[in-house]
């Protein structure tokens, strides 16, 4: 398959690492691929660690796993939020088990562990979660990019060039789409990398009189 024919989904959640989300999105758009941003909800804004907003094109539950050729999971601290979403974890597992390419960078190793697809696999991740992927049964390798079949992993933002180059190589080995594309968003505007107002992270109470809170995002000044 040519890069320009690929349907690529990139996961988003609050506290995503800026370049680990946007470099793949822009890079694969440059190659002509149709790239959508997927979150737990449709049309939901998520903030990067530093405040770059992204609005999801589609919710994880709305996509058939077979309609995704490549699923990219950025890092930062977003994976902590992603692994709370059963829809997101289910999508990651089903794309992987169905033979789609799953590409994870940095802390996204947490998502692989939660999806149960790290066991017995060679992979890399940000060194600080090395123990977590080992506990999940993976073989950790300290290299800029590691490919084990349909699983591609990298470590940090500096690795995004080789991360994306490896994903492009894997796409070139695909014969055809696995699914009909019936659940893929219709052609039209996709998540924008340009913004006028940055986002900020907002802590929302988890309930009345509780010390627990959850993280959401809002535009600065709102």
């Amino acid at each position, binding site marked *: 398959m040519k890069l320009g024919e690929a349907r690529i989904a990139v996961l988003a959640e609050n506290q995503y690492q800026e370049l680990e989300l946007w470099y793949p999105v822009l890079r694969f758009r440059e190659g002509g691929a149709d790239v959508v941003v997927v979150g737990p909800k449709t049309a939901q804004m998520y903030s990067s660690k530093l405040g*770059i907003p992204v609005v999801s094109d589609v919710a994880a539950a709305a996509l058939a796993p077979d309609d995704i050729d490549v699923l990219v999971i950025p890092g930062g601290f977003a994976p902590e939020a992603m692994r709370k979403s059963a829809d997101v974890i289910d999508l990651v597992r089903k794309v992987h088990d169905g033979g789609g390419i799953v590409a994870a960078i940095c802390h996204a190793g947490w998502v692989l562990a939660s999806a149960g697809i790290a066991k017995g696999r060679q992979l890399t991740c940000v060194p600080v979660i090395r123990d977590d992927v080992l506990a999940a049964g993976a073989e950790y390798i300290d290299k800029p990019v590691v490919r084990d079949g349909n699983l591609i992993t990298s470590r940090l933002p500096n690795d995004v*060039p080789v991360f994306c180059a490896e994903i492009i190589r894997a796409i070139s080995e695909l014969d055809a789409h696995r699914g009909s594309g019936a659940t893929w968003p219709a052609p039209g505007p996709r998540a924008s990398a340009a913004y006028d107002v940055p986002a900020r992270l907002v802590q929302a109470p988890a309930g009345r009189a509780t010390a627990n809170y959850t993280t959401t995002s809002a535009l600065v000044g709102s």
Partner: protein
Amino acid sequence: MTPTVGGPQRAAVLVTDGYLDLEFWYPVLRFREAGVDVAILGPEADSTFYSTLGYPVVPDKSTSEAAENCDLVVIPGGAAAERLAGDEGALALLSSLAGAGARVVTIGKGALVAAAANVPVEAQCQDADGLPQLFRTLLGAD
């Protein structure tokens, strides 16, 4: 990876405080992916410069010591571009590189710097959403 035949072999990307994250980092990392020798040039080589949102970067060289030629200069936008448009060292470097044959590419407000240095702009885009088309033009398909 080997650079694209006919494409840039050696590129420079200008930076100072107030740069826009994606308009700066996408070119730097994209050139690295393509095997282009890319240098980050800032007002001081040993200082840390921050994006509008606080993303840090230390340049490879200062604009005053970057003497060797390159064949492409990228000027990202943001408040950084307004600062560079008033930076005599950056303008002199840009004028020198363009005079030696370097092509100049601007993103967003980066056009202000090219105008201040009175150098022609070969290609440009308005914001980060234009980066895919800009780099398709600079580096070719895929």
